[in-house]
């Protein structure tokens, strides 16, 4: 067929529409064919595995289903955030495990972010000694397996003397092979109320901050926030505490017999796990923070300086908001990593979800259900963190109009 020679563009636009033909030359036909082949192979493989498993379960007389969750667990758990006794069900035991995982992951993520930011900024310090120390820290901690570090810290904590010869670095803090003991206030109603007041104050300060930014947009003058912040964050909780009678009793750990009584405790397992996770993850976060700050062009500092901003304002108002865009996506995967890495707890005997599910598997013999529970818990946590960080990332992303 001859192409039309006329210059009418309408004739040139669309390629000739071909009818559907069941031919090997048609890419769509090929794509459908290969997809059917691949899905068929994968499906057949899965069917084979499931079939084998069913037969094996039947032969070995292993029960299936999640009926066991309602049975009495009979497994002792050392530390728990909710009341628990071995007479409780497996479901409750696993819940304790999930809470223990979340506890170490959340505390670890917060402290690792703080330490990582400090080390990352220290690596960029103009002071040679500070920069070198931070660099050595990052290199060494990143190049050693986390499990090795955890075992090392645990061995170090276990190598401490017994409670009777406990080390006493300062005050009423005692280090022994039973863990770290420290003074803690006796928790009463008033303290909970003060904490609640603090949270309310935090929300109010956040709201005020937004209000003041709006005022600045409208009038060009930004009201001072810090007097309000002090009032709401310090004076309000203190006032509530005072109004409720200002109870304040320090509960100091005291040696009684072979162990300490009273005070707050970090068990060696929790302390080793938390310490190891923080130090390891902070090394990675430090690199992310450093890369983020370096990614902001030097001209941004200089332009901010030319506007008369102080060094702190330059960092806070100009550089950090831009650096955050580079920092947040890799930081998300570090938070995911710290959560997944907390599963190494099983090696040093901290009872997280993996450890408790593992004991459950050993007691009930129901491996498939146990591992399914572990995977489900981690997939849920991972998905939640991803969703939250994606939301946060979208909030701070460059607003292009």
């Amino acid at each position, binding site marked *: 067929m001859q192409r039309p020679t006329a210059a009418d563009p309408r004739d040139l636009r669309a390629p000739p529409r071909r009818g559907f033909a069941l031919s090997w030359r048609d890419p769509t036909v090929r794509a459908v064919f290969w997809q059917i082949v691949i899905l068929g192979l994968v499906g057949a493989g899965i069917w084979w595995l499931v079939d*084998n*498993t069913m037969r094996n379960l039947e032969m070995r007389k292993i029960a299936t289903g999640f009926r066991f969750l309602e049975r009495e667990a009979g497994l002792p758990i050392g530390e728990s955030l909710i009341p628990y006794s071995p007479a409780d069900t497996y479901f409750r035991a696993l819940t304790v495990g999930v809470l223990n995982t979340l506890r170490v992951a959340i505390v670890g993520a917060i402290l690792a972010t703080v330490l990582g930011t400090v080390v990352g900024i220290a690596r960029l310090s103009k002071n040679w000694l500070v920069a070198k120390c931070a660099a050595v820290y990052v290199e060494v901690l990143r190049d050693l397996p986390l499990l090795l570090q955890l075992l090392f810290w645990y061995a170090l904590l276990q190598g401490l003397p017994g409670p009777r010869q406990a080390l006493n670095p300062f005050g009423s803090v005692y280090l022994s092979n039973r863990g770290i003991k420290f003074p803690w206030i006796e928790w009463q109603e008033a303290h909970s109320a003060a904490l609640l007041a603090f949270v309310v104050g935090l929300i109010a300060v956040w709201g005020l901050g937004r209000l003041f930014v709006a005022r600045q947009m409208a009038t060009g003058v930004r009201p001072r926030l810090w007097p309000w912040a002090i009032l709401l964050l310090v004076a309000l909780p203190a006032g509530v505490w005072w109004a409720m009678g200002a109870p304040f009793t320090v509960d100091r750990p005291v040696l009684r017999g072979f162990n300490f009584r009273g005070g707050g405790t970090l068990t060696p397992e929790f302390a080793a796990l938390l310490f190891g996770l923080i130090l390891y993850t902070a090394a990675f976060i430090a690199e992310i923070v450093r890369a983020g700050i370096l990614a902001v062009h030097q001209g941004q500092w200089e332009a901010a300086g030319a506007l008369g901003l102080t060094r702190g304002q330059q960092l806070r108002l100009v550089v950090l908001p831009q650096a955050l865009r580079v920092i947040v996506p890799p930081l998300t995967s570090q938070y995911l990593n710290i959560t997944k890495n907390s599963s190494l707890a099983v090696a040093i005997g901290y009872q997280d979800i993996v450890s408790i599910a593992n004991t459950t598997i050993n007691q009930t013999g129901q491996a498939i259900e146990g591992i399914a529970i572990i995977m489900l818990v981690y997939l849920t946590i991972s998905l939640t963190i991803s969703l939250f960080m994606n939301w946060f990332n979208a909030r701070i992303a460059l607003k292009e109009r």
Partner: protein
Amino acid sequence: MTPPAAEAATLGAAPVRERSPPSFAVGPLVWLRANLFSSWLSTAVTLLLAYFLISWTLSFLNWAVVNAIWDVPGTGQQVDTSACRAARGEGACWALIGEKYRFILFGLYPFDEQWRPAVVVVIFVALYVVSAMRRFWRKELALIWLAALTLIGVLMWGGVFGLPYVEQERWGGLVITLILATFGIAFAFPLSILVALGRRQTSMPAVKALCVVYIELIRGVPLISLLFMASVMFPLFLPEGMNIDKLLRAQIAIILFAAAYLAEVVRGGLQAIPKGQYEAADALGLTYWQKTGLIVLPQALRISIPPLVNTFIGMFKDTSLVLIIGIFDLLNTAKTSIIEPAWQGFGVEAYLFVAAIYFVFCFAMSKYSQDLERELDKGRRR
């Protein structure tokens, strides 16, 4: 070519003598002042840090060298570690390493045959070094790997060429770590390329969905859960009578785990290839596999080499997790070496010893990856 001085002389100008900068701008004192004592805050930080560094280094040296116990009387079951116990807390007990280093490095491998795993470690290191050199980045490298891995198998199992047979249950230590990491990358890498290519198949939504589910599922769960699956669940998957050895099951779990992470790295490389490259290949009439093998992958893999090395370092460290399912890798032999009552409580020394080994491997790889990144970047910036 004439030297610059002579050239200057021919031009009739007096030779310019190079002058050194003024003394207040160079020299160690000036460097100290600029980098350590630039302000009172900087000075305070320097002094504080230097104080802590020196006092910690001194107390560490005291523990690790001055007060350390290097040797204890007796061997095996009759060993007398009372000297170490007495020095506990003040001095390290390096006698543990002297007594147990063969066990930590080679596990329960027959004592007289331990030269074989030692040679295998050397072969592994040589294999890494050869693979790291850009001169050897060609197809023949695959043959070198095949030959080396065969040789390693022969040396470890034996049973031929007059080497006594050693069953796999007795392997242990550094060799297991290197085997898990190396075979892991050797199999995970091709798999990850297939998954990454599948992930980008817009014309095949079912294949794409399959790859996405695989990647996200594996990346969403910790490696331990896969290892538990390999050790507890895998035997249920197989028909009766068929049994796969524990090390191989752990290896499969590590391969599946690493492939998901590597696939994301390769996908990043694939995304960086400009669309024009695909279209040019199509215009030449290349088939899909020709296009992928000749045009796309060579460019995409080259970009992704530095992150690939980083993923490999992560994998090398992650092999230590097999300790939890009871495989005797380097970390587990160290942990086991202090189980005997005589040596109980000297974990710090054992872990420092294996930490040094892990550090040497990982640090070398990480330095290599950084240098490579700089070099490849240079080529692209031109």
